[in-house]
């Protein structure tokens, strides 16, 4: 077993990995950028190494600095978390070349899986249905011809993208040129790779994915599916398992296809196979993720397993001790990602100080915080504040539990998605399970925060800015002078 592991990440990803390392008695080394001096992952780790500038390319994505930190602290392995360098084959190669173990698949598998065009054609050859699209990287005139063949509406997608970046929609031929340019530019900005391909945009599909674990000896199990249709900007927001409304036969077929896909890709470790599912029960391979995913706690809650522990065991050469019949479902799990963002202005991210942060508690509730109270959300990074995950006997109870947990979650200082998430969970369509990848953005268009609370919030201000003697009876409050009140600020 490893003695000491460097966690090449920040936020919730780093925190999650560090927790398991500590439980396994393995030393946990964090790295941090200038903006993350007060990061939660730094507080939880055994050791922490400063990487410098906050810009990812100068810190978390700087291969030389990260490996230098691992060597300087005497680590024998590196865990990439998710995001940043997690799918970077060059990073995995550099880790191995430095004589360290990489907790993830081999560089060869990362290259194969990371190139979506290649992975798609390999799986198509293996007889797995893929979302119709171009077989090759696309540009200029060739793109127009391919687009006609595939049919509009379609997506222009980065060949190496992830996390919803480098994707643009072309509803009609006139959109194609700008979609190509924008997807390509965003892909280059995020992944230093301009290549894009075309994919058919399916009408109102569901996004279903399967958690797969494979060891290097061919042992493999799936840990059921996750329903991840509720997305904005192609990024998941609410995930659950089991997927509501699907027959056991269909779920089994999807899970077995996922196992076959990972076998074809010769995958090793903990990964996910994503599918799009239509209303008639047809499903197509979308992409494979060769890493832990943000939403993995949904599966951990449903199965009671620790995915990071399994990942570490496989990386140090142990065979998978689980057989498929050992994997049990112990309930219905739902996750909500709480972001600093404004659902009313296109989910624009917000940055700023977290004045107060109180996670929910009680039975069946897990809160994975990404930040610490008193720290600031930096513009440089993903504005995730926390993931709230619940487990209950069935879906109805899981929804009630999640609503209750969200109502307990206090985040003050920045706008968050909490009230929006609560309202969508209480909506008829969510409760009926009749959801698809368009639902969340549609719901957001006509959603408004509850304005009847505004007056109470104003009362909160007034009470806060009044002397304590005035606070007992609101009816006796003196007329408010804002200047008197405001003098308290800035202290």
């Amino acid at each position, binding site marked *: 077993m490893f003695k000491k592991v460097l966690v090449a990440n920040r936020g919730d990803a780093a925190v999650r990995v560090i927790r398991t390392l500590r439980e396994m008695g393995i030393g946990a080394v964090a790295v941090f950028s200038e903006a993350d001096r007060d990061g939660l992952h730094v507080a939880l780790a055994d050791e922490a190494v400063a990487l410098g500038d906050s810009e990812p390319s100068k810190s978390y994505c700087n291969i030389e600095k990260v490996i230098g930190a691992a060597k300087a602290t005497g680590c024998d392995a590196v865990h990439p978390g998710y995001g940043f360098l997690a799918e970077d084959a060059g990073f995995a190669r550099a880790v191995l070349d430095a004589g360290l173990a990489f907790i993830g698949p081999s560089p060869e598998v990362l290259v194969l899986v990371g190139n979506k065009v290649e992975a798609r054609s390999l799986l198509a050859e293996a007889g797995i249905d893929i979302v119709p699209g171009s077989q090759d990287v696309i540009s200029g005139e060739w793109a127009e011809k391919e687009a006609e063949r595939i049919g509009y509406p379609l997506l222009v997608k980065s060949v190496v993208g992830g996390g919803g970046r480098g994707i643009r929609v072309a509803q009609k031929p006139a959109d194609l040129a700008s979609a190509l340019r924008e997807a390509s530019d965003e892909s280059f900005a995020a992944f230093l790779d301009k290549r894009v391909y075309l994919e058919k945009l399916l009408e109102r599909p569901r996004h279903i994915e399967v958690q797969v674990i494979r060891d290097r000896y061919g042992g493999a199990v799936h840990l059921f599916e996750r329903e991840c249709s509720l997305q904005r900007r192609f990024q998941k927001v609410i995930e659950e398992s089991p997927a509501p409304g699907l027959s056991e036969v269909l779920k089994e077929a999807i899970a077995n296809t996922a196992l076959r896909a990972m076998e074809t890709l010769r995958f090793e470790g903990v990964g996910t196979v994503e599918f799009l599912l239509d209303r008639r029960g047809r499903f197509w391979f979308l992409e494979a993720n060769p890493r832990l995913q943000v939403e993995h706690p949904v599966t951990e809650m449903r199965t009671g397993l620790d995915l990071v522990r399994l990942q570490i065991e496989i990386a140090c050469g142990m065979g998978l001790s689980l057989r498929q019949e050992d994997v049990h479902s112990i309930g219905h799990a739902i996750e909500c990602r709480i972001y600093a963002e404004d659902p009313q202005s296109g989910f624009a991210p917000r940055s700023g100080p977290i004045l107060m942060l109180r996670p929910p508690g009680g039975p069946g509730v897990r809160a994975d915080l990404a930040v610490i109270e008193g720290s600031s959300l930096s513009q440089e990074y993903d504005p995730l504040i926390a993931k709230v995950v619940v487990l209950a006997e069935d879906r109805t109870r899981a929804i009630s539990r999640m609503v209750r947990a969200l109502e307990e979650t206090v985040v003050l200082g920045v706008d968050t998605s909490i009230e929006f998430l609560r309202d969508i969970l209480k909506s008829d369509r969510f409760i009926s399970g009749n959801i698809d990848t368009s639902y969340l953005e549609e719901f957001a268009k006509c959603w408004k925060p509850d304005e009847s609370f505004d007056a*109470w919030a104003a009362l*909160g201000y007034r009470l806060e800015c009044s002397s304590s003697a005035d606070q007992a009876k*609101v009816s006796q409050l003196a007329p408010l002078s804002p200047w008197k009140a405001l003098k308290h600020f800035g202290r």
Partner: protein
Amino acid sequence: MKFQYKVSGRPVLNIPRNCTVLASRPGFHVVLNGQKVVPLIVARGGGGVHVFSRGMTRKVSVRNAVERVQAANNAVLAPLPAVVARVLVAPGDRVSQGQALVVVSAMKVEFTLVAGCDGVVQEVRVKEGEKVKLGQVLVLLSGAEVEDGSHDSA
């Protein structure tokens, strides 16, 4: 002078009265008619008070009821603190409603800012790579009708 509560950008004229308040650091329990309790958790910062109750949060500030002069409708403002990724127009360009003018990027996401009306680009106030503040004017448009001089109230 008159003052007005602004709750997450919305004006609030009347605040609840005739209720009993129990202090509960860091906040209050409001008792109405001897029974209903509205728990309010509060924190100060960023020039206002942030108030939480059961899944809802609001930022409250108090300001002079006479609003500062808003930027004209044809000003394109930064929707959040960001970096200008691309400027897609130049002064003198004729643009139509919905046309992309500037792309700004923040927290790994790109936001394309589009023209709210048809018009002509009068001024571009930012350069690519420049950091911009929330509400900063990026581009000024002049309405095509105004330039034509044919309609005043368009």
